[in-house]
């Protein structure tokens, strides 16, 4: 997405300075997906494609109703279907709309080395700012939900924006508007939690003893939440993580290594400075220059369609 709401930032990737959040007066928002009333119709997928003007290729049938077969740079949301036989031997067809969870503590943002390529707004939405993305793929590693996908065309990372462009002008996300059964709701996070609580009472009355809200504390909660009939086993829903966690490598990068790395970089810079002062600038040979030009040419040819 483009950067239209810089005044609403509360977090910004690869930045040591806290954003000013000059307009930080917004409610935290959330999308609530009630899987118990989702019929898997894919209206949300169609609406997402329409609003964001995404057109992945026409794929193949690959043994399930999941089409396209995976999230992608042009597939920001995807209905996932799991045929589950419960303890009573009865079939349940657990259908879940997959996509970015908009974590309160976003692993992607933590992992991102490109300043300002991933931001979080005051309302909680985590957004990718494409023109600052360097396509390194660290966000993919950083995401506990395996959501971002790197485009082979422009080498940038893409995922659901929670329709930040619609939300900022007071509209609901496109998928919410399109959902025919009201399974996808949107509003203040606290309101959504209340909605969920009501649904959970109903589900429990219908025999789902473990019905509950998926708002995982491991990432300090999410701005996309699920009402699950089996909240004790989120992984039944096509691999929704039981306990999502940001990779320890990314945690370490942000926590322990980053200051060390910054120090190392700084030391290297100081070293280089003294090298320049004491010994003078590095000279390159003609062979080095030729080698560099050849590599550049090869890279360009690779990228050509």
């Amino acid at each position, binding site marked *: 997405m483009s950067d239209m709401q810089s005044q609403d930032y509360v977090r910004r990737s690869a930045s040591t300075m806290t954003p000013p959040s000059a307009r930080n007066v917004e409610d935290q928002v959330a999308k609530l997906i009630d899987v118990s009333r989702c019929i898997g119709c894919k209206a949300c997928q169609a609406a997402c494609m329409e609003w964001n003007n995404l*057109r992945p290729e026409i794929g193949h049938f690959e043994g399930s109703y999941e089409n396209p077969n995976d999230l992608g740079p042009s597939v920001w949301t995807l209905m996932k279907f799991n045929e589950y036989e419960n303890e009573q031997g009865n079939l349940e067809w657990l259908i879940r709309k997959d996509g970015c969870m908009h974590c309160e503590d976003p692993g992607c943002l933590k992992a991102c080395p490109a300043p300002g390529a991933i931001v979080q707004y005051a309302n909680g939405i985590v957004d990718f700012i494409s023109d600052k993305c360097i396509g390194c793929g660290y966000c993919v590693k950083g995401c506990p939900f395996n959501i971002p996908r790197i485009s082979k065309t422009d080498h940038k990372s893409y995922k659901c924006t929670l329709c930040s462009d619609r939300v900022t002008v007071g509209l609901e996300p496109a998928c919410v508007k399109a959902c*025919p059964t009201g399974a996808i709701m949107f509003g203040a996070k606290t309101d959504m939690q209340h909605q969920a609580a009501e649904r959970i009472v109903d589900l429990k009355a219908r025999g789902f003893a473990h019905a509950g809200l998926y708002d995982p504390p491991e990432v300090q909660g999410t701005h996309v939440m699920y009402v699950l009939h089996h909240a004790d086993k989120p992984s039944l829903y096509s691999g929704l993580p039981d306990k999502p966690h940001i990779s320890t490598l990314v945690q370490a990068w942000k926590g322990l290594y980053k200051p060390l790395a910054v120090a190392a970089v700084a030391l290297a810079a100081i070293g280089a400075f003294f090298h320049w002062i004491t010994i003078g600038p590095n000279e390159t040979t003609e062979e080095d220059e030729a080698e560099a030009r050849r590599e550049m040419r090869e890279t360009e040819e690779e990228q050509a369609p």
Partner: protein
Amino acid sequence: MTNTWQDIKNANVVIVMGGNAAEAHPCGFKWVIEAKIENGAKLVVVDPRFTRTASVADYYAPIRPGTDIAFLSGVMHYLLTNDKIQHSYVKNYTNASLLVKDEFTFTDGLFSGFNDQTHSYDKGSWDYEIGDDGFAKADDTWQNPRCVINLLKQHVSRYTPEMVSRICGTPQDKFLHICELIAGTSAPDRAMTSLFALGWTQHTVGAQNIRAMAMVQLLLGNIGVAGGGMNALRGHSNIQGLTDIGLLSNQMPGYLNLPTDKETSFDEYMKTRQFKPLRPGQTSYYQNTKKMTVSLMKALFGDAATVDNHWGYDLLPKLDIPLYDIIKAFEMMNNGQMTGYICQGFNPLQAFPDRGKIRAGLSKLKFLVTMDPLDTETSRFWQDFGPQNPARSREIQTEVFQLPTTCFAEENGSLVNSARWLQWHWKAADAPGIAKSDLWIMSGLFQRLRALYQKEGGAFPDALMGMTWKYTDPWEPDPEELAKEMNGKFLADVTDPVTQVTSKAGTLLDGFGQLHDDGSTASGCWIFAGCFTEKGNQMARRDATDPREQGIAPNWAWAWPANRRILYNRASADPEGKAWNPKKPVVEWNGSKWVGIDVPDYVVTQKPSANDGPFIMTVEGQGRLFARNLMAEGPFPEHYEPMESPVVNVLHPKVGPNPVARVFDHDRSNFGKPGDFPYVATTYRLTEHFHYWTKHALINAILQPEEFIEIGEALAKEKGIDQGGWVKVSSKRGEVVCKAYVTKRIKPLMVDGKATHVIGCPIHWGFTGQARKGYGANTLTPSVGDANTQTPEFKAFLVNVEKTSAPVG
């Protein structure tokens, strides 16, 4: 629908059987979710497959395709033996008490009067005992064994839970649990709604499937009440309108019947349509049929319809056979008896059974005209698209005229939805390219044909010449003009004998109550009278105010008949006129008239003490548990096997399939045997697509790109079929090569002790459009229809399945 989409939210139990509402009607399905959330309703699904509807159901049970009557007769048996019927309703509002002729019998699968030469019935015995007073005899104590209720008890007594399970393959415990849920709605203040669609109609016993559930609903007292009813979910946008204006070969607008050639005069025609009440004091509204018919004739023929020429009766075509349905039409094409075909908004190469026969029929035509917004398979039948359409173009002489038309968003007009609402819509965009409206095309055709007859003469041009055509632009009438024509108007100054108000000639009618049989009114479709009045276009109304928040917004669009939202709503109140369910009243007697949130389906000032039945359209005034002579197969539904069935009919082995189904010789030789085709197949739709249209749209093609079948894990294992691997599905009529979805959602059913496998065939792929090419499920399906309607049996037939490799070409 007897009720409305919104009204579903008032149900206590929603049963989806013979349909897949979540999958095929996702937008309307919101009201089922609403019923669950706001009304604590239980959703029950009975289906051969675990569908998207089943995924949100409270209870699911499987059933073998084509055995719904056995299941529902079992439900009736359960209700009657466990005394779970709504007694007062059944006694007062159904024909349970009426006595049936002694000659009426049922033996070994056949009702009295069967003629095994003609495969039809002499229905003389299928009627009530008539007393000297001309009325049907009744025994309100139900002591007489010839009471309808006792005959029904006897008829369904064979459908024990054991027998239901043996026929349907539904486990007994699941069947009984569903019976219990259904029976709970026999309480006067509880209701069940039945949502169904093609899963019931597309059988050789389709109409009887629906009757069986209608009878269950009558026994439970669930017709006419909020949250109840028989709710047919219509598929095509405006298929409801199509039937309303009689676009069937044997119908005229407003469900009036086209005459047969035995009815040689108007008086003869009217003789069987007088509908004298069969019980004292009944309304029997069809006694007004002459007013409806004469007003229709005036709308069709204007000044050419006079009292002297019997309102132009001779100008109407007369049927020599019961109907010229599409199966019949393609039989005639194949026999060289039909050589030209105007195919308007229809894609039979995808949509009608035995694709090979359809292709062969089209290949024998002299000309084919297609009118469609899309590049349909039918209009390309002659082109070689490889194995998916192996046409030999050089051998086909059919001249094809492909006329691109506008679609609904490119024109003004009205659509009738499942709830009988006529909703006006406005043009949103210009049509692309040279696309023209159907009105423009049909008017041009009419004008040119009439000019040719004028110039050259010809056999019997009278009807074409006599047709009235008074439109502002005779080459493209305005949709509003047509709507007014269907509504109807006064042709002369008429003074109402009661109110003494005089309506001037030319004034639009307020409703069908103003129709006359003396030529002073015209109405193109009597049930639409009231849709476009002097107050304006009622269909364009958009006031969503719902006074009781009970799903009735009387000022949103307009519903036929008379803006009534729930049919038979007098039955929502007890005989004294008080609502059965005081929390959800529809209409009640206030001491001087019937009032409520809906337009009463009753004479508004008729006192409850008059004993005028709530079913004012029937001659008894009652709902019919016994259908008299109105159905082809019999007055009670009976389980007959599908035309292609894996088992013998355990109830009566000598009478397997529907004994009165019409089968053409060539088609009969194309039915397969279980030895060669051991698996039961059924066809259906997926949410991602709308019939054969949306495969032309990129996003839909992305969401469900490629043809596949669904097969259970057990059979896949037995046949070595891999998940997503290629399979060949074959029937006696053809084969489809596509991918396999190996699923837990289809399980083998134990039918009469044998494991029966079901294969599911989604229908959406063809060889035009954006999605990947497919063979089309109708390659496999048998060319035979329901004995009453000739709706093809797409839902139960036999196939074989084998592992194979991808098709070449």
